[in-house]
Structures are given as structure tokens and as C-alpha cells.
């Protein structure tokens, strides 16, 4: 099993991509290590696919450098770069059968027929498509097309495999299965994967690191657990998983302890680097949110239980604050429920919350240095 090495395989240095006044990617700095599974995550239009296409060579950078294995590939055509792409819609050649599709890259490189046959055969068994050589793409299901597309890219033994929402067109069950298979494939081959998706759950499942993008800006980069537990910006907190985000102002600062004042209450949280009267966001995951009939020390926040929603193994409870904001709380099914209409005290677990600056756009370059933020009651 291959490990992520310290060697930088792909580097984006101060990369900008503008289409006229439309700034698609803004001053992007990113290092992708050898053998790493890096996911670029973000909503549509955030610049993640454009970034991938700049690595592949389909788009030129407006300014900045794309460096692959220490070499600036800025003026190299896609066919001169040692990276291969798996396209969102597979882009299989419709007039060629499975064998010829996979062999395409090798025939372009004038590899000997005998070797092509052997390597295509290896790829077919790697993606579990033995015996499908003579099929035309139109005779394959979505999942099979995807496997052929992956084999067609991998047969060239690229240094980096770029995947542009490769599972987007598959149904949920198949997608889950392919996620696991892709992850295994990546571990087995030790190839650097750069994977673009808008599905946050998918990114959490598969990645070594996630790069969260929004509006052309890299909001945060880090391992899945760090992205989930310590979001650096309001956007990341909101986009990855579910979050309750409360606006607050810092009432008083006492060392590492803050008294934050909401529109309808207050709470004691511990976080450093904030000053008095500063506006902040308090982000609380639904599974960390609690409620109780009695007041909890450190919290002064009340709400009315609005409704319970059953979602399989968990129950979502909606609690409405006096100002009309809904808070989501998730409980394991079977937990005793408080009847809708009851007024309760709201609090959260010590490690369940993150305090964020509201002026987050100035923050994105400092993300890696953001100190560990903890909130205690």
C-alpha cells in the first residue's frame, strides 16, 4: 500500500483565472503531494473544475504557475503533460469499442501491439471489466462506462489522475460503491488523485485532504476531520455537514474566555484572538446541540421545540429561537423527545462549537495557521 510522501507532485502558485471581468480563480496557492488523494470541494461555479482544467492543460492560467513534478507546464499542451483526466460525462469515444478506447493513449505513444494487449488486459481486470473488450460504449451502463474511462486514463500510468465529478451521473448506491473502489484503487496504485466534487459527504469519505473552494477562493485546506471539526470560515462550516450558525457580538474578553451576546441570549465560549465588540459567528453542529428543561451554567439561550423529523437512525429536532431563527438538533432515534411547544434551555457540548471572524475574506491566506479553537462552557 502506497503512502503519501513529502514530495510535491502538483503545485499551483499564485494562480489567477479571469474571463474578462469574471474572476473564476483568485490567487490560488495549493500543493498536492505524491500519492495523495486531494479533493477540491465547492458549490458549482466556485472554480474547482477550472482549476482542474488548468492542471490538465485545457485552460491557460491568467497569471501564476502550474508546476508538475517541479516543472512549470504553463505552455505545454494537454498531450505533453503526464496527467490524465476522467471526465464527468466519461467522454468515451463512441465509435470505438472498449478495447480501442483503453488502448487509445498507448497507440498514440506508439507502444508495441503486444505490450498494448497486455496492459489493456491488466486494466480491464483492475476495473473488473474482463470480457467487455468488444462492447461499444453505447452498450454499457453508467457504472461500466465510468470503469472504462478510469481504465483508459490509468493505462497510461500517469503521475497524476484528475477526476472531474466522475460519479456525478451515477445513482446513489452505485456511487457509494464506486467511492470505495476508487479509494482502494488509489491506495493500491499510489497515484496522486485530484478529485473534483460538490458532494461534501463524498469528499469526507475519500480524501486525504480536502480543499474547500468558494467564489474562486480557497477557503480552507486540510484533512477531512479537521475541515469538519475546525472549519476556518462560515462558508466551510455551512457547506461541510450541517451547522447552526448564530450571529453574536463579543461582550467581554477575559483571557481565553469570551462572553458572546446573541440577539436573544448569551453564552460563555473560550476562544483566542477576538476583541471586545467584534462581530462573530458561532457555529454549532446539530449533533453537539442539546436542550434541557433546566438552565445550564454558562448559557442563557431559550427556544421553543417546533417539530421532530425522523431521518432513519436519527431524529432531527427543530428549536425556534425567539427571533425566529431555527436551530437543528439531531438525536439518536429512541431518545426521549420533548413535546413540541415546550420552551427549553439550549446549550452545547464543550467541543461542539467554533467561533469565527465575520471578516473571513481576509482570513483565507492564514488558514493553515489558524490556532485550534475550542469552546468550553
Amino acid at each position, binding site marked *: 500500500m502506497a503512502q503519501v510522501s513529502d514530495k510535491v507532485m502538483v503545485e499551483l502558485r499564485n494562480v489567477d483565472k479571469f474571463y474578462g471581468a469574471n474572476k473564476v480563480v483568485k490567487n490560488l496557492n495549493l500543493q498536492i503531494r505524491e500519492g495523495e488523494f486531494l479533493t477540491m470541494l465547492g458549490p458549482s461555479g466556485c472554480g474547482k473544475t477550472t482549476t482542474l482544467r488548468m492542471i490538465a492543460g*485545457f485552460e491557460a492560467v491568467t497569471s501564476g504557475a502550474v508546476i508538475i513534478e517541479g516543472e512549470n507546464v504553463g505552455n505545454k*499542451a494537454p498531450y505533453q503533460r503526464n496527467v*490524465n483526466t476522467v471526465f464527468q*460525462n466519461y467522454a468515451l*469515444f*463512441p*465509435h470505438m469499442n472498449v478495447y480501442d478506447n483503453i488502448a487509445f493513449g498507448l497507440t498514440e505513444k506508439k507502444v508495441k501491439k503486444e505490450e498494448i494487449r497486455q496492459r489493456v488486459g491488466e486494466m480491464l481486470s483492475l476495473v473488473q471489466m474482463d470480457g467487455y473488450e468488444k462492447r*461499444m460504449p453505447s452498450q454499457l451502463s453508467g457504472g461500466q462506462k465510468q470503469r472504462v474511462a478510469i481504465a483508459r486514463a490509468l493505462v*497510461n500510468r500517469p503521475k497524476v489522475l484528475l477526476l472531474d465529478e466522475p460519479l456525478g451521473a451515477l445513482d446513489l448506491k452505485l456511487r457509494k460503491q464506486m467511492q470505495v473502489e476508487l479509494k482502494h484503487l488509489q491506495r493500491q496504485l499510489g497515484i496522486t488523485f485530484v478529485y473534483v466534487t460538490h458532494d461534501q459527504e463524498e469528499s469526507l469519505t475519500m480524501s486525504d485532504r480536502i480543499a474547500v473552494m468558494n467564489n474562486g477562493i480557497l477557503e480552507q485546506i486540510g484533512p477531512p476531520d479537521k475541515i469538519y471539526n475546525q472549519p476556518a470560515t462560515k462558508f466551510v462550516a455551512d457547506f461541510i455537514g450541517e451547522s447552526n450558525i448564530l450571529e453574536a457580538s463579543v461582550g467581554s474578553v477575559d483571557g481565553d474566555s469570551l462572553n458572546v451576546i446573541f440577539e436573544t441570549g448569551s453564552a460563555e465560549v473560550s476562544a483566542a484572538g477576538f476583541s471586545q465588540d467584534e462581530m462573530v459567528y458561532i457555529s454549532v453542529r446539530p449533533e453537539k446541540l442539546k436542550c434541557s428543561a433546566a438552565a445550564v451554567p454558562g448559557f442563557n439561550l431559550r427556544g421553543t421545540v417546533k417539530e421532530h423529523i425522523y431521518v432513519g437512525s436519527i431524529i432531527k429536532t427543530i428549536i425556534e429561537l425567539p427571533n425566529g431563527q431555527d436551530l437543528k438538533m439531531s438525536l439518536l432515534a429512541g431518545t426521549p423527545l420533548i413535546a413540541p411547544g415546550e420552551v427549553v434551555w439550549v446549550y452545547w457540548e464543550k467541543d461542539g462549537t467554533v467561533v469565527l471572524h465575520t471578516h473571513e475574506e481576509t482570513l483565507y491566506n492564514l488558514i493553515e495557521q489558524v490556532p485550534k479553537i475550542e469552546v468550553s462552557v
Partner: protein
Amino acid sequence: MNSSNKQLTKLLSAVFVTLIYIFLYLPIAIIVFFSFNSSKLNIVFQGFTLQWYGIMLQNTDLMSALENTAIVAVSTVVISVFIGTLAAIGMFRYEFRGKSIVDSFLYIPIVIPEIVMGISLLAFYHILNISLGITTLIIAHVTFSMPYVVVTVRSRISGFDMSVEEAAMDLGATRLHTLLRITLPIIAPGILAGAMLALTLSLDDVIVSFFTTGVDSVTLPIYIFNKVKTGVSPDINALITVIILITLLILVVMRTFEAKTSKKGLV
């Protein structure tokens, strides 16, 4: 609705369809029928003969017209397919200033009345002092055939996911290889359809040809047109029968090709 009513509806629609097909094909059937008539008149059938086919072959004027037609048609197809395909690919792929204007002007020859085109081409050749002949005829035919090639090829391209071109380049193919190995095979049905249209348009054009042909480059339609004025002779019937046969053959070839490509999942 009761069953007798239903049957009546069925019968009526069958009669209706039959009448339409008679309307479409009876005139052609009559021509074919009279090409085997031993009488010189297209009115009464006197007996079966193949003599008009022999006479047709010995008619040197007719044969040279046939030769001219073939030369013009083949040249028109080759030239208009080449220019039209490149134009369609270029128009699809590149964005440039004034593209919509250039684009609309491509299709004007399709809607412009043939008589206008014929006269303007004649005037054009006259101004440039080009003497009329096979070359002027070919240029004229390319002018009105090429837009049809652009239309068919373009509809083929735009109905297709051209990210396969990027995939090819990603896999190491140069632009030229991508064109030869990926783009052209995929748009081939569009090119073929365009070629067929160009062929038929060139084969039976009378009006534009009438203005742009010289005395030594008379084509078949013009020859027939001139003959009709003095009465249709049975050898023309024979010729038309041969042309119908060739057309049918082309149609069969095309349908077979279509069936083959759709089986391969290309359509």
C-alpha cells in the same frame, strides 16, 4: 365507438394512404413503363422493347451530357464537402468577432431564389471575363451545395459531446490526430448526408446551370430540358429509368450505412 365504425376508419385511412402514394409515384411509374414501349408515342403501349436503351447509349450528345453531369457532380461533392466540413467545424469550435454575421451569410444561398443566383453568377463571370464552361458550372454548384454540407455537419457536431476531443488530447493525441481519429469518424454520418445532398442538388440542377454553362458543357438536366421543348423521345424515358435506378441504389447504400452506424451506437 362501435366496431364497424372502427373498421370504416381503418379502411378510409388505408385508402387515403394508398392515394397519397399513387399521387407520389404514379408519374414515375408511367415513365418507367413507357421506357419499355415499342411505340414512339408516350400515349399508347404497343409492346415490350429494350431498343430505347440501345438508342440512348448511341446518342453521343446524351452521353457527353451524362459525362459532364458526372464530372460536375463529383467535383461539386468533393469541393463542397471539404470546404463545408471545415466551415462547420470552425464555426462550432471558435468564437470570433462578427461570427453571427458570417454564420448567417453562410446559409443565404439556401433561401435565395435560384433564378437570382443564376443571373448574379452569370453577371459575375461576365464582369470578370471568365468564359462559361465546366469550371464555371462547378463553381456555381459548389456555391449552392456547400451550405447544405455545413448544415448537416453542424447539426451532427452540435448534437455530440465534443469533450471526447479533449479526452483524446488528454490521452496524448495531437490536434491533427484528434481530428483524424476522433472528430472525423464521429461526424462522418453528417458529412455523408451532406455529400448526398450536394450530389442530388448538383445532379438535377437546371436553373443555375442554365445560366452558368457553356455550349460544350451541357449537363443532363439541361439536355433533357431542351429536348422536352421538341417532345420527349422514348430514349429519355430510358435514361430517366436508369437515373431512378441509380438513385435507389444510393438510397439503399445510405440506409445500410445508417443502420450500421446506429448499431454501433453512433446515431
